[in-house]
């Protein structure tokens, strides 16, 4: 186990290194000159040249890369080209926001997906199954901008139960923060719930066909004990994979949901940074997202072995 963890850790570093090179190259081939964008329509060629020089845009790319990575290793992600604020500070401001949204979306998703998925699988072919499948299909097909706007229209404009959009940190006003999070969490969570429901239903159906389940029933166990105690655990592995991937994606910020609900998270930050060619911010954000994907994948792997002890980490399958 320890050896496995060490190996995985090394691999993570290699992956992050490769990712950093890719990010850096991609960001630098983006069309659009940051100096031009900063100075705007009226810029004189001299002013442009001076600014490019000041921003270090004239250095060869590999030098720029070394400066960048060297800085990160010292905890310095550079400064925004726009307003000279430290990138790390901005990123640290955004992470809790995205974290809060991610957390509540997941709560919504799990609260929906577990019961609906189990119902669909155990009541296969019956009304509740069709309803569950219908929900899953619509949840996946509904674009989040549409659902978001619909929710705002119904709950904020018509019923006035929730404010339409905005963000307040939890620490500043707990109640208001939660109230503001509900609609975006439902928007994001519904989509995820739909995917998880579908996964859970099909994998649970598989498991319910297996011999040991029949044995369990034969032993006279109650359905609840069979489904929750035996089948669910085994059915969760693929669900966890999908959930983990989605979780990682959420950390990248959900640009559309964030925009509709005016939530100042990582998604909005990165899109704005791309539009304004704020390279250091774009790079830091993407690197952070990649980092989260790698870390979550790692955690999911560990979770496998907890849920299903038959999965031994690091052992080559001898099947």
């Amino acid at each position, binding site marked *: 186990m320890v050896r496995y963890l060490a190996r995985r850790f090394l691999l993570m570093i290699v992956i992050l290194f490769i990712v950093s090179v890719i990010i850096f190259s991609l960001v630098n081939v983006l*069309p*659009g*000159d940051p100096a*031009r*964008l900063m*100075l*705007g*329509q*009226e*810029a*004189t060629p*001299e*002013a442009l040249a*001076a600014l490019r020089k000041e921003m270090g845009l004239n250095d060869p790319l590999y030098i720029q890369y070394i400066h960048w990575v060297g800085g990160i290793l010292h905890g310095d992600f550079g400064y925004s080209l*726009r*307003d*000279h*604020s430290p990138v790390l500070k*901005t990123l640290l*401001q*955004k992470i809790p926001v995205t974290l809060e949204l991610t957390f509540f979306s997941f709560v919504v998703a799990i*609260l*929906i997906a*577990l*019961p609906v998925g*189990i*119902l669909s699988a*155990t009541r296969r072919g019956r009304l509740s199954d069709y309803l569950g499948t219908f929900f899953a299909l619509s949840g996946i097909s509904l674009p989040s901008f549409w659902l978001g706007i619909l929710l*705002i*229209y119904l709950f*904020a*404009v018509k019923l*006035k*139960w*929730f*404010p*339409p*959009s*905005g*963000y307040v940190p939890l620490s500043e*006003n*707990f*109640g*208001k923060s*939660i*109230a*503001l999070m*509900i609609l975006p969490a439902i928007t994001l969570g519904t989509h995820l719930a739909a995917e998880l429901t579908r996964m859970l239903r099909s994998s649970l159906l598989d498991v319910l066909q297996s011999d040991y389940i029949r044995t369990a029933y034969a032993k006279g166990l*109650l*359905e*609840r004990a069979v*489904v929750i105690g035996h089948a669910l655990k085994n059915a969760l592995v693929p669900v966890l994979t999908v959930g983990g991937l989605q979780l990682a994606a959420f950390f990248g910020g959900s640009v559309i949901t964030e925009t*509709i*609900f*005016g939530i*100042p998270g990582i998604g909005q*930050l990165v899109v*704005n940074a791309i539009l*304004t*060619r704020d390279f250091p911010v774009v790079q830091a954000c993407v690197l952070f997202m990649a980092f989260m994907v790698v870390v979550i994948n790692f955690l999911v792997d560990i979770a496998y072995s907890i849920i299903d002890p038959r999965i031994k980490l690091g052992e080559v399958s001898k099947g």
Partner: protein
Amino acid sequence: MKTLRKAILPFVVIALFAFLAACGGQSSSNGGSSSDAKSGQSASTRTDKSKLVIGLDADPPQLDPAMSTAAVDRQVYQSIYNTLVDIDKNLNYVPELATSWKISDDGKTYTFYLRKNVLFQDGTPFNAEAVKFNFERMLDPKLGSPRLSEINLIDKITVVDDYTIRIHLKQPYAPFLSVLSDRAGMMVSPTAVKKEGKDFANHPVGTGPYKFVKHVKQGDLVVERFDKYWGNKPKIKTIVYKPFPDGTTRLTNLISGDVDIVNTIDYKDIKRANSAVNLKVSSTESLGFQGIQLNTKVKPFDNKKVRQAVNIALDRNAIAKVVFFNGVVPATSPFPETSWAHPSDLQVPKADVAKAKQLLKESGLNNVSFTLKISPSPQEKQLAQMIQSMLQQVGFKVKIEMVEFGTLLEQIAEGDYQAARVGWSGRTDPDGNAYAWFTTNGTLNYMKYSNPEVDKLLQEARTSLDQEKRKALYDRVSKILWDDAPYIFLYYPKDYKAMKNDVEGFVHVPDIMIRTENLQFK
């Protein structure tokens, strides 16, 4: 099977509980969200009159006026900074940090008498030395200030006494006061600049009615009443600026949320805003122009007849109606109707397809085709498609290419285009709408247009201080530009703002700024 229902029951209960808890949490924070949402319905229910929320169309990227390039920055500057001179609703210059000024007869020396007992928000006194510091900072090429090109005619700055400053220009420059009514005239605290250096943009200090508190990127920007402000004490204690890039979201938050005023509403939303019972809408013509820029150095627009054909083939009224819901004014010159330089005798013509065909024939070119570059937005696309189909009737083949805005500017600067949809936000003085755009080698003349007569007229107009004479010169320029057609003027944008009924004290100046100083609740 019953047992399973029992198994699932806890989940349902938890879900329900979570939902109720969330609702409960919401109503317990009543003072915040839900009462705000309802307060829009009638003014009398507003309990908290100490905070005003302004919805902006973008997050302000730069809080240092010397470095700003985004229009939205200027909205926030209205709270934090003062200008040397301000403009009123009718574009007259009015005192602000300068209580009066004298212009020498040769138009080259400006003497400003400064307001006394003015403090920057960090306690630094405002005086002639501070003004000198500000101009020298912007003039320093090392700073790379976009303001430099606006004030580079300054030759020398003399501090006469503590509250008198004299600015000598290299040549007479009529629009100088107009420049000082905008970002170049905003005075920042020398102490803060020396202390913060480049970080000043994140800790801005001015002399304005509100002092900066905090800014979360893409989130709230908070300013608070400056108690030692020289002018009338603002009625509202705290102002929060919130960015809503999406127009629909912005308006929804104004109607049903805690936003009190928005800096702009989309043309498509004007009707919806007008019909919302808790809102009032204000509009004014702004200072800019919009249209199509033609590259006069490449085919087919190096041919004047082709440019003229485009110019008269377009139905400006139809464009205003279809794309902009009649929220804009059809245009014929660089000077909108708010400007005294607007050529009233240059009427918007009806589209004349027959004459356009004739001109195209006279040009000697067959199968004329070109690419129109636009920036990506649904509105731009619709506009381009209308242009495309109108020109098709004449015999033009128009290809539309969408290019990201920064890249578009770059390609235009490099001359890598035939036609491009780029406009101008406009300036108070007509010179700001014409000189850089239409003089040979002008800094914005990416059309590569050159007409010695226009050069002469515009040069004369910027050095004369006699408005009547200047008006005659600009009228002449408008006529020549219409005939030469290096730029196809399509429309003058109008500015629409909406606010809750109980917001008072807003004056709609054509520079489209929200001056927060006098805002209050009924």
